[in-house]
C-alpha cells in the first residue's frame, strides 16, 4: 500500500493563532466518523477556540478518503455536519474577497523573482482577522495547487497561468507577461474561493494569511519530493488499468473532455490569430490617415474634404485599438483559461482511473489468491469506499464545472460580439457625419454660386 502518510504536524503550526501549537503529534481523539480502522492515521483536531469553527474535521489522508460535503456516503462528524448545514443555508453569500495586485521585483544574489500582493477580506469566523495582506511568488501558487490536488485528486482544481510562454518571450519579466499572469493568478484564487469544497481547504487559508516565514515552515511539512516523484511513476503505470474498467458515465465524460480539449485549443488559436491580424490592420491604418493630410497640402480646393477623411480614418483607428484591447482583456484570457482547464480535466480523469486501478489490482490479486485473502478483502473494502468517494466528488464537481464553463464561454463571446458592434457603430457614426458635412458644404457652395 502506498505510504501516503502525512506528517501529523502538517497544519497547526502554520496558523497565525497559536491555538493548536501545543498539539502533540498523533494525539487528539480522532472523531470516529471514519471507518475506524487502524489504517486511519492520527487525525488532526483543530482546537476549537471561541470564535473558530472547524474548517475540516478529518485529516487529509489522501490515500483513504476525500472530504466532500456532497457525498451522502461520507461519514460525518457532528461538527462537519454543522459546516455542511451552514454552507447549504447560504450558498450565494460571498464571504471571502481576494485581490492580487502590485507585482514587485525582488533581486537576490541567487535569483530575481516577482512577488504579488494578495489582499484577503473576510467575515468568516475561522479567520483570525477580517483583513490580510501577504506577498506571494509564483512558486507559492504552484505549491498551493499541488496541495489542493493532493487533497482532492478528483476535484477540478482551477488552472494556474503557465510557467513560461515559449513563443515570443523576449524578456522573462516584460510588463505584458506580468500583467497577464497577475490577472490569471487573481482568477485562480477567486475560483478556489468560490469552490464549495476548496474554499475551506486549510492550505488555502494558510496561503492567504501566513507571513513569509510561517509559510516556509508550513511548506516544509509534507511528503518529500522523492515520495511525490514515486507517486507519479506509479500513477502512470496504474492509470492504464483504471481505463479498462471505467464506468460508462466516465467514458462519456472522457470523450467530452477529449473533444472539448481539441476544440477549445482551436478556438484559442483562432482568437490569438484574430488579435494578431487586428493589430497588423491597426498598424497599417495608422499610416493611412496622415497621407490624406499630406495630400491636402497641395490641393487648395479639396483641403476640407481630405482633412475630414483623414480624421475619420484616425477615429476608426482608435476604435480598432479599443476593439483589440477588449479582445486581449476579456476573450483571450477566458478562452486560454479553458485551454488550461482541459489539461486539468485530463489529469483529473487520470487520477480517478488511478484510484480505480488500485482497487482493480487488489481485486485481481484476490482472484489469483496472491496474498492473504483476509487482509486483501479488508483493503478492497476500503478501496471501494475510496473509489466511490472519488467518483462522486468528480461527478458533482463536473456538473459544477460544466455550468461555469457554459456561463464563462457564453459571456466571453457575447462580450466580444458587443465589442464588435460597438466598433462598427463608432465607425459608422464617424463616416456618416463626414457625409453629412460634405453634402451640406455642397449645398452651401451651390447657393453661393447663384446670382
Amino acid at each position: 500500500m502506498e505510504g501516503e502518510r502525512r506528517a501529523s504536524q502538517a497544519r497547526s503550526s502554520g496558523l497565525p493563532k497559536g491555538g493548536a501549537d501545543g498539539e502533540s503529534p498523533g494525539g487528539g481523539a480522532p472523531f470516529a466518523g471514519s471507518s475506524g480502522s487502524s489504517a486511519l492515521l492520527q487525525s488532526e483536531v483543530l482546537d476549537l477556540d471561541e470564535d473558530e469553527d472547524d474548517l475540516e474535521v478529518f485529516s487529509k489522508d489522501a490515500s483513504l478518503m476525500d472530504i466532500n460535503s456532497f457525498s451522502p456516503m461520507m461519514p460525518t462528524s457532528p461538527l462537519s455536519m454543522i459546516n455542511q448545514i451552514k454552507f447549504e443555508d447560504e450558498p450565494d453569500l460571498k464571504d471571502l474577497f481576494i485581490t492580487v495586485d502590485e507585482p514587485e521585483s525582488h533581486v537576490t544574489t541567487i535569483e530575481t523573482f516577482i512577488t504579488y500582493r494578495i489582499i484577503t477580506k473576510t467575515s468568516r469566523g475561522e479567520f483570525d482577522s477580517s483583513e490580510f495582506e501577504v506577498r506571494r511568488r509564483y512558486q507559492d501558487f504552484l505549491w498551493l495547487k499541488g496541495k489542493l490536488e493532493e487533497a482532492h485528486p478528483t476535484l477540478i482544481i482551477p488552472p494556474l497561468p503557465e510557467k513560461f510562454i515559449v513563443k515570443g518571450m523576449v524578456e522573462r519579466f516584460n510588463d505584458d507577461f506580468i500583467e497577464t499572469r497577475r490577472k490569471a493568478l487573481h482568477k485562480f484564487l477567486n475560483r478556489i474561493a468560490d469552490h464549495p469544497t476548496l474554499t475551506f481547504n486549510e492550505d488555502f487559508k494558510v496561503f492567504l494569511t501566513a507571513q513569509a516565514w510561517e509559510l516556509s515552515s508550513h511548506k516544509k511539512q509534507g511528503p518529500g519530493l522523492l515520495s511525490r516523484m514515486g507517486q507519479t511513476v506509479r500513477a502512470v503505470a496504474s492509470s492504464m488499468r483504471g481505463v479498462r474498467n471505467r464506468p460508462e458515465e466516465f467514458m462519456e465524460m472522457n470523450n467530452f473532455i477529449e473533444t472539448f480539449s481539441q476544440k477549445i485549443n482551436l478556438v484559442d488559436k483562432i482568437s490569438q490569430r484574430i488579435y494578431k491580424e487586428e493589430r497588423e490592420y491597426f498598424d497599417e491604418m495608422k499610416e493611412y490617415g496622415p497621407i490624406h493630410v499630406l495630400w491636402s497640402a497641395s490641393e487648395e480646393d479639396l483641403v476640407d474634404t481630405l482633412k475630414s477623411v483623414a480624421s475619420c480614418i484616425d477615429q476608426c483607428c482608435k476604435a480598432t485599438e479599443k476593439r483589440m484591447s477588449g479582445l486581449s482583456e476579456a476573450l483571450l484570457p477566458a478562452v486560454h483559461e479553458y485551454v488550461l482547464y482541459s489539461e486539468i480535466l485530463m489529469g483529473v480523469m487520470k487520477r480517478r482511473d488511478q484510484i480505480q486501478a488500485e482497487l482493480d489490482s487488489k481485486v485481481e490479486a484476490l482472484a489469483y489468491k496472491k496474498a492473504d485473502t483476509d487482509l486483501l478483502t479488508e483493503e478492497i473494502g476500503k478501496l471501494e469506499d475510496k473509489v466511490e468517494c472519488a467518483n462522486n466528488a468528480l461527478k458533482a464537481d463536473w456538473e459544477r464545472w460544466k455550468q461555469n464553463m457554459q456561463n464563462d464561454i457564453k459571456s466571453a463571446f457575447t462580450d466580444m460580439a458587443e465589442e464588435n458592434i460597438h466598433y462598427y457603430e463608432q465607425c459608422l457614426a464617424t463616416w456618416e457625419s463626414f457625409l453629412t458635412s460634405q453634402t451640406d458644404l455642397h449645398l452651401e457652395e451651390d447657393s453661393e454660386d447663384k446670382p
Partner: protein
Amino acid sequence: MTENNFLLKKIEISVSEAEKRTGRTAMNMQETYTAYLIETRSVEHADGQSVLTDALWRRYSEFELLRNYLLVYYPHVVVPPLPEKRAEFVWHKLSADNMDPDFVERRRIGLENFLLRVASHPVLCRDKIFYLFLTQEGNWKETVNETGFQLKADSRLKALNATFRVKNPDKRFTELKHYSDELQSVISHLLRVRARVADRLYGVYKVHGNYGRVFSEWSAIEKEMGDGLQSAGHHMDVYAASIDDILEDEEHYADQLKEYLFYAEALRAVCRKHELMQYDLEMAAQDLASKKQQCEELATGTVRTFSLKGMTTKLFGQETPEQREARIKVLEEQIKEGEQQLKSKNLEGREFVKNAWADIERFKEQKNRDLKEALISYAVMQISMCKKGIQVWTNAKECFSKM
C-alpha cells in the same frame, strides 16, 4: 465632313464586352489577348431612344495607339489616361495576371471611361482619327500610321528624354510641374498603403470564418450550448464571406485614384512640351542675336566675337571688301528669316500657352469634382461595410446569449 459636327451629346459610347481571343503576332507566334466590344449609339432627340450605329472590337494596344496619336497632335491638351497596362498596387489576394477575369472587367470599365473622357473633351471629340476608331474596324491602324504621327512622336520622345535648361521658365508651368510630381507621389503612396490595409482587413475577416467550422464541431458535444454555438458559427461564416464584395467595391475606388495618378503624367507632358517650345524659342532668339552681332561687326570692322572667318583672316590676311559685302548680305538674309521664324515661334508659343492653360483650368475643375466624388463614394463604402458588420455581430450576439 460630318465628323466636324460630332458631339458627345448626340451619341452614347460603351465598352460592353470583353472576349478572349487567340491570334498570331508579327513574328508568327501564337498569342492570347482580350478584345473589347465598343458600341456606339446615336440618341434620337425626338423620343430619346438610342439606335445602335456602330459596333466593333478593339484590343488594348489599339487604344494605346489612339492615345499616342492624340498626345502628338494635341500637345497642349491634358490627354485622358488609359487604365493601367499591368496590375499594380495589388494586395495579395488580387491577381496580377492580365487575363484574370476581375482584372479584365476593371479594364473594360477603364477603357469605357477613357472613351467617354475623350468624347466629352471640347477639342479631342472633334478628332477624325478618334471618330474612325469608333466606326472603322478594318484599316484603322493603317489610317493612323499614314498620318505620320510616329515621326513626330519619335522626335518628341527624344525631346522628353533630353535634359536642357530653360533660361526664363514660365512660373505657372513650373508650379504645375511641381504639382503634378506631388500628385503622383502622394497618390502612389496612398494606393500602396491602401493595398496593405486591404490585405490586413481581409485577414481579420477571414480568420473569423474558422470559428464557424470549430463551433459547429464543438456544438456536437454540447447539449444546452449546442444550438447557440452552431448558429453563431454560421454568422461567423457570413462575416468572413462579406469581405470579398467589400474589397471588390474598394478596388473601383482605387481605380478612380489611379486615373488621376496617370493624369499627373499627362499634366507633366504638357509642361514638358511648353519647356521644349520655350527652349526652342530661346535658342532661336540666341541664334538671331549672335547673327545680328556678327553682321554688325563685319559692317563696322570690329571684331568682338570669335569667328572662324575672323581667325583665318588674321592668319592668312584680310578679306576683300567684296567678300565682306557678300557675307553681310548672306547674314542679312538669315537675320530676316530668323526674325520671321522668331515672330511665328513667339506667336505659336503664346497660342500654346493660352490653349494649354484653358485646358488646364478645365482639367482642374474636373479633377476637383471627380476626386471629391471619389472620396465621398469611399465614405459611402465604409458606411455600407459598417452596417453589414453591425448586422452580423448583432445576430451573432443573439446566438451567443442564447447559449
